[in-house]
């Protein structure tokens, strides 16, 4: 069991004795093999495991302070922009992706190696221990912390037989030596083997969790896409707005599903403390698991993802897409589509841009969308997120929007370098303020802009996380193992009985040895009413110390000094 293993480990802190060097070798020189063995022993020592654990905790800290690329890439790039001197250094150190940086990986890989190096030998030891018999009774039972000695009238043989039966009944593993030598015969009993099994299970499960977690990181992916009501999505790389694959991810593993967002709805709270908040988000989908599968319906809600094969689809955001049409002076449609506006706050006040590049020159629009627009003291204010009084308020830019040279551009950013802001004839500020159905003519013969209406959009997160069941099974097993390891209390009991010197009957000695991690002090209450007392009583011994006093020396439960 564990204690045996501990003894074979190098004593904490001190280095193990250097192996006896052959005389030919100069002192201090270690052969490769010794070196290897020495390092291995160091690595698998308890102290190393402890240091690695604490290191792991420490190494996890920077990732909570420095924005992480994989967690919040926007925050990370903003941070880079505002810390120009530190950013390259941090980059080198991997501080923007701590959890897959080489040094973080090194720590947990070492931990895994150490863990394996620890589990394997312990499993062997445990295996042998499992089949071993309980150890023989020590010579001097009175030296154990919990013991009792008394005299009964029964013969030693009867006492031992009773003890054997009683201990078997309590599911102890029992070994009897009834050979009446001068010391008398004894019964040795042990229970609590499962504690070590629990501990091994826990440590193995830690590895299982790491494997499951690693699989997800290597072979899985996460992606996000905004889907406007009435439009669809097919699960392939090109359709994603953002895509974050694991390093061994293979696009051919993607499930070939597709869906259409039929309708998105939310309930808005009209009164009370949560006024203006929304709930009951629901995205009605029509989906197909594969191009030739049947179409099915699913109401996608928060906390209720849609699972298709290995992939899960989640509803994680929503917003509005005003439908904007731009015409030229002739009335020809140059641009007409729902434009995704990004929410800026809880009330879904949203920001967006439209780029009409067919217009001559390019016309760009940039501005805000107010779901419920109210004029308060001359200022436009958005009252809530429901689209009760949708209003579009945008500025206009005309010129070259920089889209012709083919360089990629964000659809949420307007390149105004070649496109100055459009003003009124007299040079004063020009702003489009439109409600659904309204059209405004632009100055400078730029044509007209119509706000046709509003479509909601939802943001859908799609992820494929292989190994998540493995990780879950791992933690659950780890927990079970942990409970066994923490709460099963192994103990050994010995009963020794010999013929009394005079007057018949026998002298009986009983001792209990608990092995717990609570500390050197016996946990007097944990087994409920005392195991020792109960055993003594079951063997017909004294409940009140009538015979030769129940010596309970060393039961240091109450050392109030």
């Amino acid at each position, binding site marked *: 069991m564990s204690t045996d293993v501990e003894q074979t480990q190098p004593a904490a802190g001190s280095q193990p004795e250097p192996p006896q060097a052959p005389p030919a070798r100069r002192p201090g020189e270690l052969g490769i093999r010794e070196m290897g063995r020495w390092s291995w022993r160091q690595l698998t020592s308890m102290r190393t495991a402890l240091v690695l654990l604490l290191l792991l905790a420490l190494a996890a800290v920077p990732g909570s302070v420095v924005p992480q690329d994989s967690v919040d890439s926007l925050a990370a790039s903003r941070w880079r922009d505002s810390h120009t001197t530190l950013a390259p250094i941090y980059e080198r150190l991997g501080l923007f992706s701590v959890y897959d940086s080489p040094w973080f990986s090194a720590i947990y890989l070492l931990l895994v190696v150490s863990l394996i190096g620890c589990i394997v030998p312990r499993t062997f030891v445990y295996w042998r221990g499992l089949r071993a018999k309980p150890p023989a009774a020590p010579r001097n039972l009175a030296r154990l912390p919990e013991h009792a000695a008394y005299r009964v009238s029964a013969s030693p043989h009867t006492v031992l037989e009773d003890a054997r039966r009683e201990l078997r009944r309590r599911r102890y593993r029992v070994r009897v030596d009834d050979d009446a030598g001068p010391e008398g015969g004894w019964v040795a009993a042990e229970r609590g083997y499962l504690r070590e099994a629990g501990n091994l299970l826990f440590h193995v499960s830690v590895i299982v969790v790491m494997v499951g977690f690693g699989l997800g990181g290597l072979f899985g992916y996460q992606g996000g896409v905004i889907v406007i009501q009435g439009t669809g999505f097919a699960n392939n790389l090109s359709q994603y707005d953002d895509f974050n694959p694991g390093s061994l991810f293979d696009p051919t593993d993607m499930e070939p599903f597709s869906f259409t967002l039929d309708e998105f709805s939310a309930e808005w709270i009209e009164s009370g403390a949560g006024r203006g908040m929304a709930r009951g988000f629901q995205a009605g989908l029509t989906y197909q698991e594969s191009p030739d599968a049947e179409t099915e319906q699913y109401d996608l809600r928060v906390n209720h993802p849609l699972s298709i094969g290995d992939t899960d689809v989640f509803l994680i955001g929503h917003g509005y897409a005003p439908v904007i049409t731009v015409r030229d002076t002739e009335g020809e449609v140059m641009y007409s589509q729902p434009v995704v506006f990004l929410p800026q706050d809880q009330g879904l006040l949203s920001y967006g841009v439209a780029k009409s590049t067919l217009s001559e020159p390019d016309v760009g629009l940039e501005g805000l969308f107010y779901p419920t627009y109210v004029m308060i003291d001359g200022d436009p204010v958005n009252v809530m997120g429901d689209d009760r009084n949708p209003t579009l308020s945008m500025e206009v830019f005309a010129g070259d929007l920089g889209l012709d040279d083919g360089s990629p551009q964000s659809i949420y950013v307007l390149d105004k370098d070649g496109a100055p802001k459009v003003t009124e004839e007299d040079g004063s500020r020009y702003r489009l303020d439109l409600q659904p159905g309204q059209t405004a003519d632009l100055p400078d013969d730029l044509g007209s802009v119509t706000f046709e209406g509003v479509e909601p959009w939802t943001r859908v997160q799609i992820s494929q996380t292989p190994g998540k069941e493995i990780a879950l099974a791992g933690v659950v097993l780890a927990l079970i193992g942990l409970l066994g390891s923490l709460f099963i209390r192994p103990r050994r009991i010995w009963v020794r009985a010999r013929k009394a010197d005079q007057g018949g009957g026998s002298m009986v000695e009983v001792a209990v040895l608990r092995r717990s991690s609570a500390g050197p002090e016996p946990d007097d209450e944990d087994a409920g009413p005392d195991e020792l007392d109960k055993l003594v009583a079951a063997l017909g011994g004294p*409940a009140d110390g009538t015979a030769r006093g129940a010596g309970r020396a060393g039961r240091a439960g109450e050392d109030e000094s």
Partner: protein
Amino acid sequence: MSDTAWEMLSNQAVGAAGIVYFLALLAHLVEWAALRQPGAVEATRATASTTGAGSTASAARAAGGGVAVATGPRNGAGDTGQASYRVALFGRLGLLLTVVALVAHGISLVGRGMAADPNRVPWGNMYEFTLAGTFVVALMYVVVRRRFRLDWMAPLVVGFVLAVLMVAVIWLHSPVAPLTEALNSYWLVIHVVSAVIATGAFTLGGLLSLIYLVKERRPDATTGLLGRAPSLARLDSTSYRIHAFAFPVWTFAVLITGPIWAHEAWSRYWNWDPKEVWAFITWVVYAAYLHARTTAGWRGRKAAYLALLGLATLWFNFIGINYFSTTSQHSYAAPALVGPAEPGAVVAGDGDPGPRLL
């Protein structure tokens, strides 16, 4: 009852709980003061050890806290007897008041839950979490008081709960608001219940480790808290056992229910969000604590330091991350995509990053 009535009831119950905790604290302080009189401590000791040496373990257990003095033999003159009588009386009074306060505390929690529409579990924001956490600390103390013989800790626990409760009422109070969609999951209930229980237990265990360290420096103190605290060995093992209880519960909360819920709400069961990172750090530190005790034989002082380190990370996660973190759960959606699953923004006014409210 209307929602506002419930909310008012909750507020009044918190006030009442605070006052009664305060009275309980006073009672325990009188108990201490009585202990300070010469002879009183000896009297309790003597009682404890005479009964302790007796045959039944339960008598020893009852006497351990010094409360059973009244039933034990009185040795010494009248005033000693009187002092120990007073110790017993005020000890009991303190316990009684603590229980009364606990009931009011519980009512305030129920009130918060009932005040929300729809009704919900009372831990939607930091105020409510603090309310629930302190409730668990006090409850746990009352429940394990006998088993672990913790009566001597009473003033400490009550004082701690009172202080934190005051902080909550003064700085953290926020009106009842409905849960955001992502928080509206039964995993929230399981996750938070277990996390609150673990937090309460770790806190209790940490207090014991703290006392261990103080007592270690002044081993011969005979009065006050240190005088009544049990032996170093017992402090150490009691602290361990409370930690051993808390650790699996924490494992369940942050490594099982948390990820399951995160997976349902945001598609990633583990995303190294600051909240998650710190929950993980706490887990690793406590794992190191247990590990060190069993394998490296780090009992006593070193173990106590590790336990306090664990406690520091636990509280930092609750307080620090909520207030200072720049990158938070908001990251789950792309930039400005304030959406249903981005609860942080909506968990009223605590700047808290997300469903992981602890």
